[in-house]
């Protein structure tokens, strides 16, 4: 093994050597510098591998050949080698990244860079306090020099502020060190730790000063204005070094020095970290400048790490895993983001839409963003999972709440930013060059990120339990993205079919999973069929479609809470990207993501609560939770965000309406069932008694009823066809929630029947309307009209869809209604039931509006030549129609197994439905789908032939051959009665549709924003204010601690 001291030697030597070069030897000098850093990197990585795999405790290096106190000693342990590897690799890539900048500024700036790397290496290794101070100063000076790498007034001002702030901080550090020496008599950490000197107050103050200085180096909120200015003004390559490099070194420093103090610093660290995490992220949401935003985020992440250090005792053995996973995510993502920022050179986050010009960088951008927020499969996801679970074990609920709140706030601005990159208008005028040497570092970090994800999965404390096949499939699709769309589509369909076939045996016995698995997979394949009508490559669609379905099927397969949550997040992510692909869906996708994220975190907390006192994460743990009320409520609210219960529904209409034509059925017909599945699972596992005791089911019932009424009422007043369907989904999910809340046998049967029905008809309707929209290129129903002549098949599909939706016999929807009455009567929830029935009749209004405005009435001139919807839209529609017909004629095919399944579960031992051939009966009534179908069919045919006989030679006439009081119609546009069709209804009941909920969320939004806006005014931009912050911060912390 090479002695790590050589790292310092080589770096320092090279730095001196480079100082000798003149302009001519620039390339050579750069190569030399690169070699030196590469050398350092190789050695540190080598050491890490050696120490990690071996059993050695590490190596003490004594400089000057003698032991302390006569010399300074360095220590190379596993931790040190790990962080050094990180820093050196970062340094190497950062050095490459800055190639061009160095060329402009001359080789002397690269000298500073080398010194910086060297300084950080020593900071990690050194065990001597004063030595730490010295190298801290060296790092600071080098950085201060590098800040001015990007010339300009801003950089100069930022650099000055940085230096002044660092000066004050290091003064504190030095005072601390000197008094430490006064009382401890040594400057060596190990010596002090071994000496066991009795703590006196003086030494506590000294150590306080040292630690607070190092903490201030970590830029705690709010004493961090200087750092933000630096992030904003410095060259992004340097910002990356600060954010990922010096922060790493500093946090390790803190970690290293912490044992010195006899005071219990940890709670304070937790508070400081948490305040930083939440506060910094909060201010981030009003930030428009990308680098400053990254600065806020960076500070927030460091705050999280500080908090984790503070929480270490509660995490026990898991501390290392959690800390490293969070750290590595921040380290890779933040550096990568800063580097990307430097590539595109756009300071306003809205202008990041230029990323779309380079798919690779957009991909990397998304990867890093998701990694920061903690989405699976990235390490931070595992870290946060473990963190929250362990915190829950210690009942540290406040900290769970704070950490997740911070993460959520971070999600707000990061996803908004991501939305801008995906959807904001791109100003084509402004040219941009993607420089290759700047692309290398983020690429390497992306690869490292994926590798880290893989290893985290394997190293995860749960063991490699995840089913990675879908993930590999997704990755393969990313790689194969250059293929034409139909090839990829076929691949995906084939993959899903094969996977379903393979999956079938494992869920064949479980009717519940079979039903939902069927919805997810069959629905998935059917909706994907529609994708064949897309021309071109359809870049970036298929990986995320598969991601969504992988998540959904993962929910089915999940055996433990972790897998469930993992799949849940994967599904959310995939669907988010699918939604944001729509033309005007930036805002709606953000809404969707935020609600999903919030919901996911609630589920997360719920899982954590249920895990208290448990060893495994098995799904069954839900049944023996010690806090059933809370667990139930949190998880239920989480699922309710996905099912868009009223109050949490505002994301749905926009997201579903603005998505692409074939995505809308995916997210509406299929995705919403994930929430239903979750709720069913929750009830099954937790047991309804727990919830019933606290009237929670009662609340859920009312919620469902109001959701149904509100959703349907809103749907009536829509002019946008897809938005109408989306609101209708809100209403229909309200029925399902209501029925679920019964927790009776027939109630659940209703809910499951309704889920299947809703999948069938809503997918059908969205596909049909999607096909129409594709042809006519507008969503507004009043602009269409009379399309039945051009699109008869779509018309039939919509007709069957709305008959099913409205629950008119003989089609399948009636089964749901019938079960509903039985359920309501047997449960006794009459008034809620009344809401539901009122909602049901209101459904007619929008059903009629939908089919009339689009297909009937007056044809418009511009749609005279439109064709029938693409055949790929029609095929799945026909299959769905067949499905509806089968379930209409033979409802027992679905209901019998469901009844059996529910009877087998512990809650509903008796099946109230009796089957006599195909006739179902309960105590209250009876229903025979098959016979009804038969009677109505025969009758209809007879009557039709009667009319055919009577008026066999009817003259075909055209659209304006209508009676018009002796006049003629003016124009089709003015003759088609569609816009504001239900104005009278609005006069009567429109007051119920006032958007109270949107007003609430908007109010919350603006309160948050104005809070952030006002709070960030403390960063006045004046260096002296920052110093005041620092001083006040020290004083306040001191007051708190002593």
């Amino acid at each position, binding site marked *: 093994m090479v002695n790590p001291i050589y790292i310092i030697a080589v770096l320092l030597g090279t730095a001196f050597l480079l100082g000798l070069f003149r302009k001519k030897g620039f390339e050579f000098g750069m190569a030399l510098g690169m070699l030196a850093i590469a050398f350092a990197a190789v050695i540190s990585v080598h050491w890490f591998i050696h120490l990690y795999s071996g059993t050695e405790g590490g190596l003490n290096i004594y400089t000057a050949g003698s032991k302390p106190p006569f010399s300074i000693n360095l220590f190379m342990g596993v931790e040190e080698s790990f962080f050094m590897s990180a820093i050196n690799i970062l340094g190497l890539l950062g050095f490459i990244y800055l190639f061009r900048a160095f060329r402009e500024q001359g080789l002397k700036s690269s000298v500073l860079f080398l010194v910086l790397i060297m300084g950080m290496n020593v900071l990690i290794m050194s065990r001597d306090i004063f030595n730490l101070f010295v190298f801290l100063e060296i790092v600071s000076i080098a950085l201060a020099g590098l800040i001015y790498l990007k010339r300009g007034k801003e950089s100069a001002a930022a650099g000055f502020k940085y230096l002044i702030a660092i000066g004050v901080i290091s003064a504190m550090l030095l005072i601390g060190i000197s008094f430490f020496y006064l009382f401890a008599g040594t400057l060596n950490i190990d010596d002090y730790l071994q000496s066991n000197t009795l703590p006196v107050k003086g030494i506590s103050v000294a150590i306080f000063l040292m630690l607070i200085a190092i903490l201030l180096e970590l830029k705690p909120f709010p004493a961090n204005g200087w750092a933000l200015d630096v992030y904003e003004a410095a060259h992004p390559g340097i910002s990356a070094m600060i954010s990922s490099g010096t922060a790493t070194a500093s946090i390790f420093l803190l970690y290293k020095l912490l044992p010195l103090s006899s005071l219990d610093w940890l709670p304070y660290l937790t508070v400081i970290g948490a305040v930083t995490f939440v506060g910094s992220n909060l201010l981030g949401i009003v930030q428009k400048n990308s680098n400053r935003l990254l600065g806020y985020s960076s500070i927030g992440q460091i705050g999280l790490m500080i908090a984790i250090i503070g929480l270490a005792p509660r995490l026990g053995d898991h501390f290392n895993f959690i800390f490293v996973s969070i750290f590595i995510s921040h380290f890779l993502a933040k550096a990568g983001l800063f580097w990307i920022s430097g590539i595109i050179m756009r300071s306003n986050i809205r202008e990041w839409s230029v990323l779309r010009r380079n798919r690779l960088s957009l991909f990397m951008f998304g990867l890093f963003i998701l990694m920061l927020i903690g989405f699976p499969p990235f390490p931070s996801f595992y870290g946060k999972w473990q963190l929250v679970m362990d915190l829950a074990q210690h009942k540290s609920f406040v900290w769970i709440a704070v950490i997740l709140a911070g993460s959520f706030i971070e999600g707000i601005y990061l996803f908004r930013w991501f939305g801008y990159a995906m959807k904001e208008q791109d100003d084509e005028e402004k040219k941009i060059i993607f420089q290759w040497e700047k692309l290398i570092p983020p690429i390497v970090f992306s690869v490292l990120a994926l590798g880290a994800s893989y290893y985290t999965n394997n190293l995860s404390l749960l063991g490699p339990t995840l089913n990675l096949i879908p993930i590999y499939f997704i990755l393969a699709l990313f790689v194969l993205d250059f293929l034409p769309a139909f090839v990829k589509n076929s691949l995906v369909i084939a993959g899903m079919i094969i996977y379903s076939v393979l999956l079938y045996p494992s869920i064949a016995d479980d009717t519940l999973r079979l039903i939902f698995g069927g919805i997810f997979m069959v629905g998935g394949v059917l909706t994907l069929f529609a994708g064949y009508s897309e021309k071109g490559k359809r870049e970036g669609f298929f990986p995320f479609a598969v991601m969504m379905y992988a998540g959904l099927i993962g929910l089915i397969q999940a055996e433990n809470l972790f897998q469930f949550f993992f799949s849940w997040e994967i599904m959310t992510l995939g669907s988010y990207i699918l939604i944001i692909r729509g033309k005007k869906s930036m805002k709606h996708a953000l809404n969707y993501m935020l609600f999903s994220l919030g919901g996911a975190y609630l589920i997360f907390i719920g899982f954590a609560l249920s895990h208290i006192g448990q060893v495994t994460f098995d799904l069954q743990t839900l049944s023996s939770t010690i806090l059933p009320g809370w667990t139930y409520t949190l998880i239920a609210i989480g699922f309710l965000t996905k099912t868009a219960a009223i109050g949490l529904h505002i994301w749905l209409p926009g997201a579903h309406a603005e998505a692409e034509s074939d995505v809308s059925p995916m997210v509406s017909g299929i995705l919403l069932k994930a929430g239903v599945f979750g709720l069913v699972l929750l009830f099954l596992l937790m047991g309804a008694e727990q919830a019933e005791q606290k009237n929670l089911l009662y609340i859920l019932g009312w919620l469902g009823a109001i959701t149904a009424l509100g959703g349907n009422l809103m749907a009536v007043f829509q002019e946008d066809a897809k938005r109408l369907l989306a609101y209708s989904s809100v209403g229909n999910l309200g029925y399902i929630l209501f029925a679920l809340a019964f927790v009776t046998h027939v109630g659940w049967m209703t809910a499951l029947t309704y889920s299947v029905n809703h999948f069938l008809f809503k997918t059908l309707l969205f596909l049909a309307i999607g096909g129409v929209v594709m042809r006519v290129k507008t969503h507004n129903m009043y602009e269409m009209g009379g399309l*039945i002549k051009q699109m008869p098949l779509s018309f039939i599909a919509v007709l069957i869809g709305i008959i099913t939706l409205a*629950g008119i016999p003989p089609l399948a929807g009636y089964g749901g209604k019938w079960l509903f009455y039985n359920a309501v009567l047997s449960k006794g929830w009459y008034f809620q039931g009344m809401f539901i029935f009122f909602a049901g009749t209101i459904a*007619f209004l929008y059903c009629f*509006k939908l089919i009339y405005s689009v297909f009937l009435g007056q044809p418009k001139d511009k749609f005279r030549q439109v064709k029938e919807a693409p055949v790929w839209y029609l095929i799945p529609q026909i299959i769905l129609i067949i499905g509806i017909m089968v379930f209409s004629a033979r409802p027992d095919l679905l209901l019998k197994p469901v009844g059996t399944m529910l009877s087998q579960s512990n809650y509903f031992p008796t099946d109230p439905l009796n089957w006599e051939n195909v006739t179902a009966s309960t105590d209250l009534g009876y229903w025979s789908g098959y016979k009804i179908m038969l009677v109505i069919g025969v009758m209809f045919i007879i009557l039709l032939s*009667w009319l055919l006989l*009577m*008026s066999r030679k009817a003259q075909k006439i055209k659209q304006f051959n209508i009676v018009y009081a002796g006049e003629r119609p003016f124009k089709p546009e003015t003759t088609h009665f569609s816009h504001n069709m239900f104005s009278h209804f609005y006069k009567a*009941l429109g007051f119920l549709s006032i958007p109270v909920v949107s007003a609430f969320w908007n109010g919350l939004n603006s309160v948050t924003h104005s809070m952030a806006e006002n709070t960030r005014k403390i960063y006045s931009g004046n260096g002296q204010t920052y110093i005041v912050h620092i001083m006040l911060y020290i004083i306040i912390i001191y007051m708190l601690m002593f």
Partner: protein
Amino acid sequence: MNIFPRIVFVLLGLFIVLNWGLIMAGIIRKIIARLGMRRGIKVFQPYINLIKNYSIRSQLSHGVMFYLGPVFRLSGGVGIFLFMPLIYGSDYWSNFSFTGDLILITYFMFFGMLGMALGAGEGGHPYSAIGISRGLAQFTAIEVPMTLAILSIAIQYQTLSISEIVAAQQGGIQNWTMVTNPLATIAAMLSFLGAMGHSPFNVVMAPQENPVGPPTEYHGTFLGVLQTNRAILHVIEAVLYMNLFFGGASNWGVLIIKTFLIYFWSVFVGMVFPRFRVDQSIPWFLKIPLVIGIAAIVVFII
């Protein structure tokens, strides 16, 4: 019972109901005329109108759905008939009521409405669409008290089967729902006013401002089919209310008297009150009948 005799009885019943519907309409018109000091139409005038409409020689068609609209409408009317038990205690006259219960009938009423709405919609006439939108909007409110009344009697009798509800009311007028559950009866009869579409709830048709509403474009045979349906539907809806609230009928004579009285109730009210606009009738239904309906349920919960 074997299926073929049943079909024969069903057709026979349908024939009786159709005729009774036509005659009833004539009688009612006659009564109205006499109230207005007129001689009025002949009692058989509805028959003549029907024959005349079927005898119209030329027909126009706006399209397939226009053509199918009346078929849907008539299927709706005949369908309700098919699922309705007519005479208590008689297997012959219980039609196909074994296939479904009260809920089936309530929801099957929409079948005809929907078909009519679509057919009229394809006519392309804005007045049709206006009429439909008014009708549907008003119907949402009409259904609520009706639903409450149905729930109330379902709680009362613990069944949704119409035959069983009728059976429970046998043995004298004191056992009729009208007596045992007056609140539900009142709510339902108020909603019946709306369902029948007479004044004050006839803004759907509103001949003066909105020429006959949905069927503006229908004529000749199509109109004949619609008229046939109207005759059947009026009787059969009255039969439904009779079965639910007025003790059912044990023979045809009782059925005829009861349905006449029930139907006359809506006409009688229509004679007295002027027309509501939709935005007036919806709040009305959601105030008075709704409160009565809720009271009908509260009584049973307590």
